[in-house]
Every structure is written in structure tokens, then in C-alpha cells.
């Protein structure tokens, strides 16, 4: 069994047909992790006991000849921002170094209820803040395609593990591009569902109006399978939408001929790498040959998305991260003079530089005298960005863009320049602000022979269409 190309269906049928067992599969994944992960750094914590117990349960079902659930025996990884009962969850931060959650996030519970075997927790930027995974308080992740380069972020471990065959699929989270951009850098599929499509119960909050959970996978079909598993209303998350969940896998086979795909010139401007541009152009040509109609659209406020994002996201983060005070869980500073001293020193010691920077920016943007000029202004521009997309979606069924302006950059290249790092998210942040779904799929290589990602954006709650386009492109690319 080739672990580097193993998909959900292949793993599940091999277990169902008894050519392997879920236990043997999990063991072989752990052996691969032991062999390869020292050079990559994708895992922060392994959950062997939990994985092997789940695998034994699946093997018992298979032995009785019972039908396996959709993810029966499939080895998966979970970004370390989703809490797992009894399994350390750090959010990539020192402040949660020894945190053992007393409950499971809904997304993880649904994955396991569908038979998934959780191998462990994936490395990420601290509190999902970053575009390169270099902000992890534990270790950087190296891109499996070129170990001198970043895997993207913040779900860098989730992307690298799928790309290197150390997990069949993983869950990531996306607040400004954190699923799609690392998927693009590592050459895998990454899907950010619509805001509200997947429950965030048990997701360690970064920016609550922007946080999404979604899958990283080797194929579009696997991403569709996982979405079908985790999507849908959850009484534990009042922001989860009360809408039916389509059969995403069945939707993949619908024809794409006649679909209108928008191309916005604002996504092909200054800063777009030439090799990336060429790869995207040829992907769009390929979609045209499949019978999609390519339609020019305009998203005129695109250049304002990054400043808007870095006000909204940091303002929300400054509020969400106020809970790390050293009282109920997490790190606490020692030998303190007072309660106030304990708060400050706990947070000074526990948070890394980027997290502090964002807390400071967000607190500043919300502070008296600056609220109107910054936070409120950003909320108004958020409306303009949303209107751009509403208007475009009157004309087209989906919009295709590059996922990132460049392929994976070198470790350290942007580490000292926060603004340069923020601009790595220029094509992804808008979808988070507007709440629409987006998928990144591999579409060829840059001039440095690194993976390039094609991003497909869809209407609210219309994941089915972007998955269908992505699937059609994926099939055509391989033929």
C-alpha cells in the first residue's frame, strides 16, 4: 500500500476487504511518522492509545463483515487548535503547553463517529496566527517538497502531513487563508467551507467572525467526504447554520459544462509571481476546454482586503485571547507580586512575538479615540468587499484566482517583516471576511518546480459547485 497516495476510499476498502487492518494501517503510519517527521515537524503530539483503540473498534466491525462508516479506519491528523479530550492541545503556544482538554471539539467528534483514527495533533502557527508556520512556539514545519522552504501557514503541519503521506486527511482552520495557502504551498487540496457550515465548538478561538474549520486532503473527493462528515448544525455552536447538508460526493459527478467562472483582474496584479501566473492561466484554459465559460468580473475593493482583515482579525483576537490569564488553565508566571502582575507576566512569558503584536494592534484599534478610525472603518469596508462578491456572483457561478501570489518561500525569508508576511494572504483573506467558501487545488508548478495552487471561490453555502469545478479540473489535469 503506497501511503503517499493513499485516499479515504482506498484505505476504507482495504480494511473492509480485509487486505489490511485499521490497526496495521495506523501502525504503518506511525512508522512513517517516526521515519519522516523528524525532518518535517508536522506533528506536535501523537495520540497512539486513542488511535489504536479506535482502529481496534473498526477492525472488530470489519471482522464481523459489517459495513464500515465513511471514514472507517482512515488515519487522520487534527490541527492543534481543535480540542481533544485527554490529548494535549497547545494551539502551537507555550501558554497552553500542558493543557489537557476535558472535552472534544464537534469536528473531531464527528470525524471519530465516522470511523476516523486520530493519529495526533498537527503543528501550526501560534493561535493560528501566521502564514509560514514559523510562529509555532515548538518548532517550524518544513515543506516536504523542499525542506528549506516553509509549508505555509497557519495549518502548516496539516498540509505537510498530507503532502508527505503521514496522514490520509487532516483538519485545519482558516481565518485569513490558513487552510488554502498551506495547501497551495504543499501541493494538496485545502477547503475552507462557508462561515457557519462547520461547527467551531471546541476550536480555540482566534477571530470569531472569521474562523472556519475545513479539510486538507490529497483529492477533491476526499475533501468532499470530510466536509460531508463535519458539516451541519450543532446546538453547541450558535453560529453554525441551520441548513441541510448536501451529498457533496454525489455532487462531484455533475457536469461543469456551461458553468460561468469569473476571473478578476485584481487578482493578477503587481506582486504575482510570473511562474504562478502562467500556471493559473493554463489552469483557466483547461477549465475553458471542459466547457466552462470564462467571464471577466471586477472585485474593485480587493486592495483594501489586507488592511481590513488585519484590523478585524486582530481586534477580535485581542478580545478572544484575554482569557489566557493563568487562572483556570495554561501557563502561570511564578513569584508574582499581585494579581495584575500575574496576568501581565503570565502573558508576557506565554505568548510569542506575533501573538503579542496582534493583541497590541487589535487593542489599539479598539481603544478609545481609535475605534471609529480603525475598527469601525474596517467593518464598513467589509461591507464593500461583500458587495463586490454579491455583484460578481450575479454574473458567475464561481471565481478562479491564484491561492497565493508566490510559491513556498524560504524559511526565515519573511520572518522579520510582519507586513511582508501579511501580504502572503492577499488572495485569501477576502473570502474569510465575506464568509464565502474557497478551495485550493494543485495546478502545476512554479519556475522553481514548487507547487502552485488554484483557488476557486463560491457563493455562500455553495461548496458543491466549487468542489465540482475542482474535481473536474483535477480529473482533467491527471488525464
Amino acid at each position, binding site marked *: 500500500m503506497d501511503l503517499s497516495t493513499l485516499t479515504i476510499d482506498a484505505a476504507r476498502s482495504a480494511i473492509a476487504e480485509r487486505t489490511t487492518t485499521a490497526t496495521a494501517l495506523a501502525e504503518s503510519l506511525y512508522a512513517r511518522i517516526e521515519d519522516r517527521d523528524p525532518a518535517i515537524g508536522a506533528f506536535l503530539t501523537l495520540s497512539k492509545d486513542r488511535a489504536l483503540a479506535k482502529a481496534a473498534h473498526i477492525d472488530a466491525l470489519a471482522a464481523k463483515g459489517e459495513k464500515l462508516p465513511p471514514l472507517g479506519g482512515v488515519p487522520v491528523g487534527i490541527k492543534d487548535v481543535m480540542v481533544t479530550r485527554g490529548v494535549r492541545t497547545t494551539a502551537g503556544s507555550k501558554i497552553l503547553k500542558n493543557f489537557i482538554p476535558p472535552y472534544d471539539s464537534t469536528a473531531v467528534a464527528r470525524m471519530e463517529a465516522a470511523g476516523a483514527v486520530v493519529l495526533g495533533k498537527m503543528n501550526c502557527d501560534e493561535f493560528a496566527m501566521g502564514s509560514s508556520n514559523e510562529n509555532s512556539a515548538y518548532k517550524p514545519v518544513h515543506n516536504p517538497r523542499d525542506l528549506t522552504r516553509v509549508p505555509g501557514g497557519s495549518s502548516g503541519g496539516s498540509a505537510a502531513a498530507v503532502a508527505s503521506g503521514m496522514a490520509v486527511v487532516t483538519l485545519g482552520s482558516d481565518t485569513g487563508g490558513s487552510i488554502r495557502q498551506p495547501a497551495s504551498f504543499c501541493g494538496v487540496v485545502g477547503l475552507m467551507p462557508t462561515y457557519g457550515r462547520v461547527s467551531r465548538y471546541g476550536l480555540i478561538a482566534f477571530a470569531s*467572525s472569521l474562523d472556519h474549520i475545513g479539510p486538507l486532503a490529497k483529492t477533491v473527493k476526499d475533501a468532499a467526504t470530510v466536509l460531508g462528515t463535519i458539516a451541519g448544525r450543532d446546538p453547541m455552536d450558535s453560529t453554525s447554520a441551520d441548513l441541510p447538508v448536501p451529498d457533496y460526493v454525489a455532487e462531484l459527478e455533475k457536469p461543469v459544462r456551461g458553468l460561468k467562472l469569473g476571473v478578476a483582474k485584481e487578482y493578477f496584479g503587481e506582486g504575482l509571481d510570473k511562474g504562478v501566473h502562467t500556471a493559473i492561466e493554463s489552469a483557466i484554459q483547461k477549465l475553458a476546454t471542459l466547457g466552462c465559460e470564462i467571464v471577466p468580473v471586477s472585485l474593485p475593493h480587493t486592495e483594501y482586503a489586507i*488592511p481590513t482583515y488585519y484590523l478585524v482579525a486582530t481586534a477580535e483576537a485581542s478580545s478572544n485571547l484575554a482569557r489566557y490569564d493563568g487562572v483556570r488553565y495554561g501557563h502561570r508566571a511564578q513569584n508574582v507580586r499581585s494579581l495584575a502582575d500575574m496576568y501581565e507576566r503570565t502573558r*508576557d512569558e506565554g505568548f510569542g512575538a506575533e501573538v503579542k*503584536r496582534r493583541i*497590541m*494592534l487589535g487593542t*489599539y484599534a479598539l481603544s478609545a479615540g481609535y475605534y471609529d478610525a480603525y475598527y469601525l472603518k474596517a467593518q464598513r469596508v467589509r461591507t464593500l468587499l461583500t458587495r463586490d462578491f454579491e455583484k460578481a456572483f450575479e454574473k458567475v457561478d464561481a471565481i478562479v484566482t491564484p491561492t497565493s501570489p508566490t510559491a513556498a518561500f524560504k524559511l526565515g525569508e519573511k520572518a522579520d517583516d510582519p507586513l511582508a508576511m501579511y501580504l502572503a494572504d492577499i488572495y485569501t483573506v477576502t473570502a474569510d471576511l465575506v464568509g464565502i467558501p474557497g478551495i485550493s487545488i494543485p495546478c502545476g508548478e512554479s519556475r522553481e518546480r514548487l507547487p502552485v495552487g488554484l483557488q476557486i471561490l463560491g457563493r455562500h*453555502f455553495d461548496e458543491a459547485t466549487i468542489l465540482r469545478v475542482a474535481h473536474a479540473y483535477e480529473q482533467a489535469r491527471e488525464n
Partner: protein
Amino acid sequence: MKVTEKDVLYVADLANLELTADERARMVRDLNSILDYIDRLNQLDTSDVPPMAQTSDRFGVDQAKQGSERFAYASRDDILNGLRKSLPRDEALANAPESDGTFFKVPKVIER
């Protein structure tokens, strides 16, 4: 320069951070560089544009319903224990840096 060291000290205090002298100097530099970039938002006249705090009252809900009625599905009956039982005390305290087995312990709040 928009942000001075004094501003950084004030905002750090609001955020319950202290920051070392080096961190403060770097924060002045970084915040100014980011805020300079953010300034481009002022190119836009947004006086007639309503602010948008989140997207879920606009998409995926019944637009015919007004206000909180759109989210009636998210409310539940007001019953004891709600959706799930409370955590047992020992589990709730298990991650506490310091507890006495009944409460979280913190340094003295009121100085005499």
C-alpha cells in the same frame, strides 16, 4: 509616526501585557509600519456604508424574518443543565495552575 512608546505602554497595559524594553521598541516600529499600510482605507469614503460585524445574519438565514427571529433555531429551552451536564469539579480544576480542590487559587486581589 502614529504610535509612540507612550502609546505602546498604554495599550500594553490595556491588554495586560508588560513587554520588555526591546519588545516595546520593536512594537513601536512594527505597529507604525502596519498602520501606515492600513491608512489606505482612508482612500475610501464609507460615510454611507453600514458596518458589518459578521456575515451570518446576511447569508444562510431567512431574510424575511427580522432581527433575532432569524436565529430562533439557535435558542433552546431554558431548562436545568441545558445542553449538557456541567463538568465534574475535579475535571474543571484539572488544568488549573493552582487550586485547593474546590476553587481556583489566585494571588491576593486586595492589598491592605
